């Protein structure tokens, strides 16, 4: 059996505060920009951080597993205050 050739993947890690940890930046954006500009139907704004990674893996599952393992091993997020999710993008970096 031949090993699958490595494919290139783009994976995004999105980190934001847990609901219990206030996000003053998001609150300011909502209050002083979004609402003041008339978009009063927007009920919450949460800011966060994105890390976009390009990596090689033999499958989408492996790419995702590698990134999730790294996120936890290196504490890319602080589990006390943050939540994260990992999203696979296609080769052009789009969903």
């Amino acid at each position, binding site marked *: 059996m031949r090993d699958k050739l490595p494919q290139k993947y783009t994976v995004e890690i999105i980190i934001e*505060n*847990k609901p*219990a*940890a*206030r996000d*003053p*930046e998001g609150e*300011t954006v909502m209050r002083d920009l979004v609402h003041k500009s008339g978009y009063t139907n927007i009920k919450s704004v949460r800011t966060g*951080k994105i890390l976009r990674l390009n990596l090689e893996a033999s499958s989408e599952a492996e790419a995702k597993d590698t990134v999730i393992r790294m996120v936890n091993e*290196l*504490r*890319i997020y*602080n589990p*006390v*205050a*943050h939540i994260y999710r990992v999203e696979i993008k296609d080769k052009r970096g789009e969903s």
Partner: protein
Amino acid sequence: MNTEIKIGVVRFPGSNCDLDTVYVLRDVLGVSADLVWHKDKLEGFGGIVLPGGFAYGDALRAGIIAAYSPVIQEVKTLAREGVPVAGICNGFQVLIEAGLLPGALLPNDGLKFICKWVNLRVEHSDTAFTNVEKKGGLWKLPIAHGEGRYFADKTILKELHENNQIVFLYVNDEGEPTEDANPNGSLESIAGICNLERNVLGLMPHPERGSEKTLSPYRTDHGKRFFQSMIEYIRKGVA
């Protein structure tokens, strides 16, 4: 100079309160103190200080990259052996990210970097850094940080209370932890905490900037008590 006591001050790329800390230890407290590059060995020190600054430019979040420096494994070993370890400001952020202290330090509530003098209340005098102070003692020290909002989940907060690990609170002139006296939105006005063994302590205010009366607008030198406590703790361990 008291050569029996030697304190190591760790320098990370981006530390900027390292020399102030060494100066206070040597010239104000009269003990021996050396700078240690974060890739070098920590040998022969009775106490360790992780100083303030912006290690690795606060990339990703303050303290996280320095938490993986080679020196941190040694700091962890020394902490387990009972050596007093202080983390001041960025040093506190490093101790949190290295897992030596629980919780998180988030960007300040007002999103601004805050540089001002604050009042602190000493909640416990049985730690390696507060043993010359009485419980309830009030200190004036400066803060200078952008990411100092202490946060913990309910489980951690309960443990901190049960184990008397909340050591410093931000308070007003009357010694009360009011909302107005809380500069950064820290949970329950927490300014500093210690570990279960009470030899590892982190705080956002800068004792090294408040250890001489000439440097304080209030003519206070409360920061000295922090380092005197540390020296006292080491001395008792040596004896």
